């Protein structure tokens, strides 16, 4: 009987584990393996080249530009989207007028495809005719600006879209966490005569700590993953100003068909994610210890 139950368990587990290994674990390992071989071209088969692909990466200024851009992209979008998400959640959870409508407004970008979003914003950013130029023209008297066509503003324009798309999604997690805080705590603080700001800093925010960590980790993952709008709006341009790590991988692998270089770049991406996982683990570990 015991043996049969065990067999059943393995049979139930097998399909999911098989696919999981085939499309997550195997490719992660195979990427590393393939990053040490050259790209097969025509009659020349793939051969072992050691660290040559990594050397090529290190010598490619576009790769460094993409890494640098990705750092700026993460440093810009993560704090902004998480901060806005918290503000939204506090507003929607409070006694604000029309909070149901507001919650809907904040959350709507979450259900839109990134490609549709890209089209909406392309229109928004159009020089001269676009809504943004009209607003800056009317309020600040600025002339037409080519928001996604000039090096200075393109990455910022892409970051604004990512923040717009994500903040409402992260708001939901904060909302769930806020509703899980026992009202007794706020009542006790009110009895003590604590101001709203004090309650927020001393009671609400510490209780939101684990949620914030979870959201920040997801926001960082998204800063590597969310590139759909960049691929259709700027193709990483102008002059690589909006190239990120994943757009670099996409270009190397599927536009120049240099799969070896793409594999090496993917390994860099996986290492960064591994680092993120380690940081998360350490922070979580300390937190539970603290408790």
């Amino acid at each position: 009987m015991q043996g049969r139950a065990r067999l059943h368990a393995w049979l139930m587990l097998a399909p999911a584990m098989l696919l999981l290994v085939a499309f997550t674990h195997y490719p992660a390992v195979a990427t590393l393996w393939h990053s040490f071989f050259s790209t097969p071209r025509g009659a020349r088969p793939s051969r072992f080249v050691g660290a040559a692909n990594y050397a090529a990466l290190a010598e490619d200024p576009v790769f460094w530009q993409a890494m640098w851009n990705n750092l700026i992209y993460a440093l810009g979008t993560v704090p902004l989207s998480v901060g806005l998400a918290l503000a939204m959640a506090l507003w929607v959870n409070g006694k604000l007028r029309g909070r149901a409508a507001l919650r809907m407004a904040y959350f709507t970008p979450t259900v839109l495809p990134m490609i549709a979003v890209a089209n909406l914003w392309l229109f928004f950013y159009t020089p001269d005719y676009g809504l943004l130029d009209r607003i800056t023209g009317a309020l600040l008297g600025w002339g037409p600006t080519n928001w996604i066509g000039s090096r200075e503003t393109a990455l910022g324009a892409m970051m604004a879209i990512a923040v717009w798309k994500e903040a409402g999604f992260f708001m939901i997690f904060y909302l769930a966490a806020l509703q899980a805080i026992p009202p007794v705590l706020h009542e006790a603080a009110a009895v003590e005569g604590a101001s709203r700001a004090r309650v927020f800093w001393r009671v609400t925010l510490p209780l939101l700590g684990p949620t914030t960590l979870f959201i920040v980790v997801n926001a960082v993952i998204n800063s590597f993953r969310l590139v759909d709008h960049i691929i259709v709006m700027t193709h990483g341009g102008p002059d690589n100003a909006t190239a990120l790590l994943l757009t670099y991988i996409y270009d190397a692998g599927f536009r120049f068909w240099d799969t070896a270089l793409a594999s090496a770049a993917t390994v860099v991406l996986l290492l960064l994610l591994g680092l993120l996982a380690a940081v998360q683990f350490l922070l979580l570990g300390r937190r539970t210890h603290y408790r």
Partner: protein
Amino acid sequence: MSAAIAPALPAETRAMPRLGTVLETAAAWLLGLVWVAPLLYAVWAAFHPTGYATRFDLTAPLTLANFVAAWNAAPFAQYFLNTVLLVSFVLAGQFVLCTLAAFVFARSASRLMGLLFALVLVQLMIMPDMLIVENYRTMRALGLVDSILGIGLPYVASGFGIFLLRQAFRQVPRELEEAARVEGCGTLAILLRVYVPLARPTYLAYGLTSVSYHWNNFLWPLVITNTVEVRPVTVGLAVFASTDQGIDWAIISAATLLSAAPLLLAFLLFQRQFVQSFMRAGIR
């Protein structure tokens, strides 16, 4: 409690709103306005003749011609069919495989199972979205390039789904399972008659997040498809908007709204369920 009572009070007895509250409300509404502005702008452009796309005039005539033009300019019916097939295949596969795996993980506490479960959780960090180069190689070897199966297969065994369902299954009291066993139920019957019905809210939550993820997914479908017969709506829309560089904003807006419409309408109709489902899926 107090929130429920407050609206019942006559308006006069309520304290005058403080300046801070007024400012906060204004800020919240301004942000809300900014958040819906791109969408409203597209709605404006899509429902008015082309000339009004960049000209705001409340007397502008309304029209559906842009939607008709967009629908006829690209094989959107085929794209929608592909997306529906893709989303159904992924969701059905995820429900079956994740249920089976989560059931085993929820009831076993052995070291080996703990290790396997940790391997499952790896996918929360390293998603198939990032392994496009290697997964493309695999799909080519399997002959699945440019097929619905090829788009969906990497996502069917979802680490997130297994994790969520395992959490839900662990809440099920053991007594229920023992009672069912006494009644003569086998393992599979226990899963289907006891565990699955009790986890229904989790299935709804996971289903909604999964459908919106795969309806909206772009990069992997872009890489793995090359023909109209297989492309989902997102890739179709991107192809449409990039080839029609004559940029007729009204028609592109209409196409954009078309592609987003099914999810958007579902969201507007079942707003509460959507938000609560995403909330439930987010609680870990």
